[in-house]
């Protein structure tokens, strides 16, 4: 953005409230959108606000929020990952295969996460050391992972899984575990990125990598590390995704990477790198889920669903731009 070209105007010292609004603007915009939509949908159909509906709504989409945590870190560092959907499909299949073959459940949960970390670390190495742009590497891996999955499984369903495997269907203190995972991971990630040196270094790498290097941050290992983190979150998302139903489909979930990227971006993560929070992207993932569900409750004609979704994305983006304009 052309912030170099100052357009003049004397800045008055903003009030404390407006500073908070400016700093967390996008998160507030997204939260406001969520609440407004929920209120409108609830007004049209009270069942939208019922406990059953809200629980299944948030629980069923929590895995997108988890994946968005990793994606946000990648985007904040100035890169992108369009292969995360294919990766999640592969990892969920690995988890199911291990479980059905009789391996211990904890292994079926943890091994895919490890695989995710390794695959994405490799991608990160290609980006950082071979200096191939992230979009190129991940575009290539999108095809490689997808083709590999089909070759290996032919899309066969994995059934007869042991009941202890379905972690996404467990409840902790009455709350479905996906919601717990998403909330805890978001909070931990947000705190880590704000208060730890390593976490803040991510912003530095994305904001201005030359400056980052100048203050002693080793940008290349950082990029590998950030991608590895992305793989970690993708692995957890894959487990939550794959254990929702009694069978695993061994296919790549359609459009997942677009949804995750959109969630990160709507949540305020700047595609130019350097700003944004994981809280914003998790909130945006929630917004997405609320939009998709509320449009059905609002009886929007099924043929126009995607158009309305596109308009809403555009509206949120324009609102964010308007807010940034005001700050300068």
């Amino acid at each position: 953005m052309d912030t170099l070209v100052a357009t003049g105007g004397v800045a008055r010292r903003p009030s404390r409230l407006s500073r908070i609004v400016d700093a967390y603007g996008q998160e507030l915009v997204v939260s406001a959108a969520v609440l407004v939509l929920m209120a409108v949908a609830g007004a049209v159909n009270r069942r939208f606000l019922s406990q059953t509906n809200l629980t299944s709504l948030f629980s069923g989409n929590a895995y997108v929020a988890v994946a968005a945590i990793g994606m946000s870190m990648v985007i904040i560092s100035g890169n992108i990952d369009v292969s995360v959907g294919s990766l999640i499909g592969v990892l969920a299949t690995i988890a199911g295969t291990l479980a059905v073959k009789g391996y211990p459940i904890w292994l079926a949960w943890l091994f895919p996460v490890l695989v995710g970390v390794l695959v994405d670390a490799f991608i990160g190495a290609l980006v950082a050391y071979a200096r191939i742009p992230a979009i190129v590497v991940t575009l290539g891996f999108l095809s490689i992972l997808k083709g590999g999955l089909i070759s290996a499984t032919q899309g066969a369903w994995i059934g007869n899984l042991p009941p202890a495997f379905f972690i996404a269907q467990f409840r902790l203190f009455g709350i479905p575990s996906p919601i717990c995972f998403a909330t805890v991971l978001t909070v931990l990630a947000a705190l880590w990125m704000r208060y730890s040196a390593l976490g803040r270094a991510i912003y530095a790498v994305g904001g201005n990598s030359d400056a980052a290097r100048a203050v002693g941050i080793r940008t290349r290992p950082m990029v590998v590390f950030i991608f590895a983190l992305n793989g970690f979150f993708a692995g957890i998302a894959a487990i939550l995704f794959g254990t929702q139903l009694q069978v695993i489909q061994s296919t790549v979930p359609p459009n997942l990477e677009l949804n995750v990227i959109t969630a990160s971006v709507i949540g305020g993560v700047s595609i130019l790198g350097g700003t944004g929070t994981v809280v914003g992207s998790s909130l945006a993932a929630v917004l997405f889920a609320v939009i998709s569900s509320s449009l059905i409750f609002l009886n929007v004609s099924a043929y126009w669903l995607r158009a309305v979704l596109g308009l809403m994305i555009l509206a949120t983006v324009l609102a964010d731009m308007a807010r940034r304009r005001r700050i300068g």
Partner: protein
Amino acid sequence: MLRKALVLVVGSTLFALPALAAAGWTGGDDLPTNPLPCDNSSVAMAAKPYDGGVPTNPPDRKGKKITVVDVPKLIGIGYFNATSKGIADAAKELGNVSVKTDGPTKANIDEQITFIDNYITQGVDGILFAANDPVAIAPVLKKALSKGIDVVGYDANSTPDARQWFVNQAQFNGIAKSLMDNMAKEIGESGAFAIVTSTFTTPNQARWIAEMSAYAAKCHPKMKWLETVEAQEDNVLSFNAATTLINKYGSDLKGLFGMTSVATPAGAEAITQAKKCGQVAEVGLATPNAMKPYVNKGCVKSVVLWNPVDLGYAAMYVLRSVADGTLKPGATSVKAGKLGELKVVNGSEILLGPPFVYTKANINNFDF
């Protein structure tokens, strides 16, 4: 300017909100429908003259080894794995066919056309296909015919003149009748139901929904259609769609239709997890294996399908008969290996049989 744009965008959103009143049910197409009679009387089908395509100067393939390619809508999903298996089984039985299944990794007509085109160039003897779009696939199939290649379709038809024969798993109106009658039996003549389908542009699903709408208007006029939701061919999306419908309509919803072999088990799962087994019925198309857990627990009473393995098996036999010259235009039946004699209907369609209903009594006898 920014603010004006914002207002415009939000305003347009609000304009799109009122549901547009649809003539039929959402998800159906607007081709003419032909509902069957409400009772179980059979309708004599008037004999139609052969309307299939004709290959140009095909070489004499009688008794010789032929190479065949099978191009389904997409590869990597269970349903077409099953048809593929049937095709391979038949090829093995016949002994003089070398067949390969290849296709796009998503249900995209453009990619499917490219696949078929490549195989035409490669010079195969026969093409089996399940079309993503009946009209769009016609030009490339006609090109195949013009090069003397035998073309037989299954599961999803093309326009008749683009292929020689089409193996139909069941008539569209027959499936519609079976589905609607089963639903009426479970939820009563004034029950309300919703539909989960793949996409509104998938030809088979659109035909079924259109026929269901016509049949319901004729024979179950008091049953209430609530809405149709798209869920692609994805497990999780279908599950989420079904759960949303259950939550939206609460106790008003008595039944769910699953229009794909993925949507039906996902819907049953949604009903199970919502603890509404017995309160919401799930009726749909699915493979028996996917539904066994729900049928055996009593959550789902009936599953409608045909045998996709048999479908592929029959298609392969039909292609071999065409190549051998034993199945000619104007024939009224064809011999299809262990399936026996299959009837020719509608000019150039070969009927696999009436739709099969799997229930608790018989579902455990099947394994696919």
